[in-house]
């Protein structure tokens, strides 16, 4: 049975998944610009009221003091940019985007803002297809480094109405 604006049932559905690594290699020229390594489209009408998209990402990157940023855009809205701590080589990102009693207004939870005073919101019409972009950059141009999107899963958890 269809709920308003959403897929039937209450079980989570896998929207997209890939674990074929995509590597961004620094070129010491354009590294400070964000580049989208992968993009996922959530088909219009997938999300119902209170339904949520859950995104998991696995990253590997050169362990160094150079600043690196891992970013997710939701329908063009910058939802999270997790800075990589210096001298770490793995990152796991978790982002939940919820249709809050609306089909066109979301609240979000991500690891970088959890428990902080910053509220992450968006106003994307989920009755239309929404692109999720997985992006990254360096804080400054660097030589011989890599940021690797090892893989991701995008799940949809239906809401109750």
């Amino acid at each position: 049975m269809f709920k308003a604006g959403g897929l039937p049932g209450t079980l989570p559905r896998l929207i997209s998944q890939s674990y074929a690594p995509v590597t961004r290699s620094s070129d010491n020229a354009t590294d400070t610009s964000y580049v989208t390594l992968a993009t996922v489209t959530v088909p219009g009408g997938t999300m119902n009221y209170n339904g949520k998209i859950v995104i998991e990402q696995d990253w590997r990157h050169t362990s160094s003091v150079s600043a690196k940023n891992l970013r997710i855009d939701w329908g063009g809205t910058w939802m999270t940019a997790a800075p990589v701590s210096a001298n770490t080589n793995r990152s796991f990102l978790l982002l939940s985007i919820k249709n809050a009693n609306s089909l066109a207004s979301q609240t979000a939870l991500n690891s970088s803002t959890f428990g902080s005073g910053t509220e992450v919101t968006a106003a994307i019409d989920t009755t239309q297809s929404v692109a999720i972009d997985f992006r990254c950059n360096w804080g400054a141009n660097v030589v011989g480094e890599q940021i690797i999107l090892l893989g991701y899963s995008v799940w949809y958890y239906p809401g109750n109405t």
Partner: protein
Amino acid sequence: MTDYVVSGGRSSTYPAKHYGGQFIGNRATFCLDQDFLTFDANVQAIPNLQVSQLTSLPVTANDKFFGMHVKYRINDSQSGCSFGTVRSHDMENGKGRWQFIQPTNDPNPANWDWADLDSWANTHYAAGRDLVFTLFGTPAWASARPTERNAYSDQDPEVIQYNRGITSEPLDMTKWDAFCAAVATRYLGKIKYYEVWNEPNYQNDGTGATGTYNFFSGTYAKLAEMVRRANQAIKAIDPTAKIICPATTVWAATAGSADTYFTGMMSAPTSDGSTTMKDWIDIVGVHLYLPTPNRMQDLFAMIDRVNASKTAAGVSALPTWDTESAPINPEASTLTDLHLSQFIARSMIIQAAKGIARTFYFQYDGPDIGIKGRPAVSYRERIASLLLGGSIQSVSSFSDGRVGYYTSSGLTII
């Protein structure tokens, strides 16, 4: 074909399915199905790519490429499994071993026990197959060390002794000469390929046995002398016969004991004052059993190691035969039909792609390792048909053991 322009921080295309990608500057490269025909430079340069192209040349094999062992004589005439070459080693009850063919020091070959070997040779020769006979298993009466334990003997704490001393060289090498000559005489025109011994480097470091499950307990020099003498004895009777070197095992993806043993035995003197083993062989035999747990992803690198060792030993021009391979850790009997079929198909394709001239599955009807009655037999026929038909245009190996091959129908991953 796989390169896209990055503008405004985005690739012009994001393929729905790919095997890895790279962004650098204003170029994005993805490895796609069609790239498996030929990995161009940009695809090869993708970091963290989990697939390696083994060859972008057509991969073919003739019917002799497909070798087999048949343990039981009742199965010699089976028709469900196609093979153009057959190897004698480990026939039922050891009846292919010198130990049982000449059980006493009776010098007259007419009195020896040839019954099983006759049956084996006649059946497979009539079927049009090439025959490989493995010269192996010194009788206790001829053994230089007749009380030694070995891979076929009793082990501690067994009380009853059996098969002691059979992995030793003969004390009197003229007995070896006579045995080799007797086999070549009896099977003149039928057996064309003679392999000297079996897996000499298993629990042996070239100076002697290092364990009680060895297949050879002598030195490099004794083994080299046996190869020279076998060559001379056999080719005196059949100048067209070919000699396969002792087949080394425990090869790995990185340099290890097999490499060391192989080059050591090839350069070992044969006691004639001038030659080494390499001067007396026509074919390089190896056993390509995989590291545990049947790590198919290691196979192509193992073959690279074999080739590097051949070059180091000065025998790079000789063909390489895999005279034994099979899933052993875990064994075929514990694999699902799907996994067994995949193992056999992947192994045959990689070996053909990497230039192995013949490969012998061990064994068709072995109790734990056999494929008789399994769906893998028919799947093997399908892959053999592809290789025989020359329709495979390129081959790639994934880091998880899968194999991709490209035909006019596109990419297939098994």
